[in-house]
């Protein structure tokens, strides 16, 4: 294993004698392995040793994978990219909660969960997001393109390049702009779907509907947007929202339930105004 004692040892910016450093953690991992979408898949148990508390969760999986590659085994596939909590690529069910929210003590992405949240000897269950709309590609990697298709169905403002008026010709009250920003920070990770007992993507959809609907620029398409995005969400095979609230609790960006209410409000208004989804 490649973890250094150095990494494990320092605290508060001071170095301690490497000889005195505590040994890294030994952990038992139970990981969902599934070769292909059609494979049945199962949980497989692995051991990792000498894990530094300063490692990120994904770095811990890197350590496992290096070992697997050298042994000629298939490394565990998981999605990741930025590793700083902003791209939305990563996403694992860790001990039964999305992004390990049950362990982290605060909102987090999987890549920003650090091993100091675990103890030596812990056993960790790692599973992919589970939803019909998120078919497993391999191991822990799932296909989340359904979320893109929800955006395609109306999650935009039609503003062809070059047609924009001077930016200051549109005034937006700071309150609305801030609320829109809060909603706009959704990173499309899909943890809300993974956490929701109904496998509903309502929080994701609501975040986009709120973001655009709070801006003056978003008004002309507001009614069509909400009806179409919801119709697409149902079409993709997501569950319906019954206001359970697990989504918001698991969301790394803290997208609030208020956005779902705003979506519902918009939807009922749009239906009353006669908006119907283009089939």
């Amino acid at each position, binding site marked *: 294993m490649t973890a250094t004692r150095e990494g494990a040892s320092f605290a508060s910016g001071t170095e301690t004698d490497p000889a005195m450093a505590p040994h890294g953690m030994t952990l038992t991992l139970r990981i969902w392995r599934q070769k292909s979408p059609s494979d049945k898949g199962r949980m497989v148990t692995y051991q990792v040793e000498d894990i530094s508390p300063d490692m990120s969760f994904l770095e811990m999986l890197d350590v496992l994978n*290096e070992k697997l590659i050298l042994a*000629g085994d298939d490394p565990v596939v998981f999605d990741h990219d930025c590793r700083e909590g902003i791209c939305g690529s990563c996403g694992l069910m860790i001990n039964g909660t999305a992004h390990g929210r049950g362990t982290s003590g605060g909102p987090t992405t999987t890549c920003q969960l650090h091993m100091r949240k675990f103890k030596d000897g812990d056993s960790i269950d790692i599973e992919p997001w589970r939803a019909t709309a998120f078919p497993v590609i391999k191991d822990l990697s799932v296909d989340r393109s359904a979320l893109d298709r929800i955006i395609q169905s109306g999650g935009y*403002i039609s503003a062809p390049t070059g047609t924009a008026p001077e930016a200051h010709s549109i005034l937006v009250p700071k309150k609305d702009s801030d609320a829109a920003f809060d909603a706009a920070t959704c990173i499309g990770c899909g943890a809300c779907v993974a956490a929701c007992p109904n496998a509903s993507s309502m929080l994701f959809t609501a975040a986009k509907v709120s973001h655009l609907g709070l801006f003056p620029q978003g008004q002309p398409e507001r009614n069509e947007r909400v009806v179409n995005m919801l119709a697409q969400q149902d079409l993709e095979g997501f569950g319906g929202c019954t206001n359970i609230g697990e989504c918001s609790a698991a969301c790394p960006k803290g997208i609030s339930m208020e956005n779902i209410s705003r979506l519902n409000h918009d939807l009922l208004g749009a239906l009353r105004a006669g908006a119907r989804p283009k089939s």
Partner: protein
Amino acid sequence: MPLDLFSVGDPIADTKAPRDVPIGERWSTRRFRARLVNPANRRKLTVIVVGTGLAGGSAAATLGEAGYKVKNFWFHDSPRRAHSVAAQGGINAAKNYRNDGDSVHRLFYDTVKGGDFRSREDNVHRLAEVSVSIIDQCVAQGVPFAREYGGLLDNRSFGGAQVSRTFYARGQTGQQLLYGAYQALERQMAAGTVEQFARHEMLDLIIVDGRARGIVARNLITGEVSTHFADAVVLATGGYSNVFYLSTNAKGSNATAIWRAHKRGAYFANPCYTQIHPTCIPVKGDYQSKLTLMSESLRNDGRVWVPKERGDSRDPREIPESERDYYLERIYPAFGNLVPRDIASRQAKNVCDEGRGVGPGGLGVYLDFGDAMERLGRPAIEAKYGNLFDMYAQITGEDPYETPMRIYPAVHYTMGGLWVDYDLQSTIPGMFVIGEANFSDHGANRLGASALMQGLADGYFVLPNTINDYLADGPFEKVDDSHPAVAEALQDVQGRVQKLLSINGNRTPASFHRELGRLMWDLCGMERSEEGLRKALDRIPEIRQEFWTNLKVSGDLDTINPTLEHAGRVADFIDLAELMCVDALHRAESCGGHFRAESQTPEGEALRDDENFAYVAAWEWTPEGAPPVLHREALEYEYVHLAQRSYK
């Protein structure tokens, strides 16, 4: 300086910028002179766009909307994950909303000077002109820029600029700008003008009869290698900082697309120009997989210091004021902690080289908010930097309110890239390069908040206007897999992928990547010397040799296999690293982010050599071990006069 490592070819020049008119009229003149394509004909023309970052996303959306048939490729699962999403600080635009004397000309001037006089005036001026429309466009799309109570857009000053011209969306500007482009792109996908190829990695460029006519791409899920054709190809594949293994770039950021295009004939310009960002969270152990940037804005209130004594390992809170060295304030009394990135980075390296660095391995300096907390109170600091402090605490497990942060420089951005003319066309007709992937408008040093500006300028406004001039000659003759050039490219790629999988040695791609990165960081990083670069140039071929004989990739060819993807990228990084070192070695001057130990002022500052090096170094690939060929593009400064930068 003649070297055994390269040969010199003919000079190269941009012929597209209309130099017969004053600089302020060149962009409109070029647009006027460029030929147009009738809307009815656009449907018959196909454009491949590789990449969905700010540059690729905005270009694909705009071209699709214009009526071209666009095929968009990217290696992520969704266009929204392109690395542009991680940009924090902001985007510049010469709006002069603050009435503080800003103008297109000032932005132009600052950018040329900030680039240490190694960029092309025409391009930079156009960038400054277009910057204004970018903000309008983004606001119309619903990008939630920060606003003031009156409902107007807020601006801040950034990266040491003297005017407030930076537009921002909290610390997530790149994310919000990218989502604007992504939504525009998704809209075109729904409209059917943009065809999507998610999780496809471009592995080669197809050239037929001297024109770029398509790409070879591998479907990362099925492993299938296939060819795709078009009338023009646009690369928007981002920067190559990951040649250093540890950088602030995302794990997947790679040089493969531009490197393979380079090997097919596109010149690579200024490969050695890299930007090192001074405020990153230091490395903790050799398992570390990436580095995280802490916004530069922290230097507005934080004070940078190290202990005066070497090897002083006391708790920082126990080191008395008199035994601390606030070295930036000491060396640069006028700018203090706010000196530009390259200078702050180099000084951090200097104090660590002296053995006064702090934290594990002695690779870190303190960024101390003690004074600011006393002066402003903790709530004010929380309001200003709360999210950054939280991020720091989450990653390091330390509380920055209690103990000073530790920071260290890290590779952040590459100013080098494929050479392009004013039309953003590479030396291969029909291949255009935009965003961080081209050698860009930033010269030897990029100013803060200007990469986002450049990516969107290229994608929304420049390319969609210039590419018409090329496409006006199309549609070109149909090509398919039976063409010998196509068959060859396809075979090349398939052979290479199989080769990587079959070596079956003892080292993982990551272990080679780490070794290469460490070598580049030590010898071609913040400070470069002839001796060091030569050492690197001796070592890199050995690494390459070992890579191709001792690599271990497990898993299969026909399913998703990240190890295999990584191996291919590392192979290209090894080749690119070599060219970077050659470039760094040949440029025996210091400029911007490129600091040559041999070329410094008596005070240890970067010393430019305009006499000999006021040019863009455009490198041509020569196959089979022959040294690369240098083509120089002379840089002339008509509007901004050459001057030495000084921050004392």
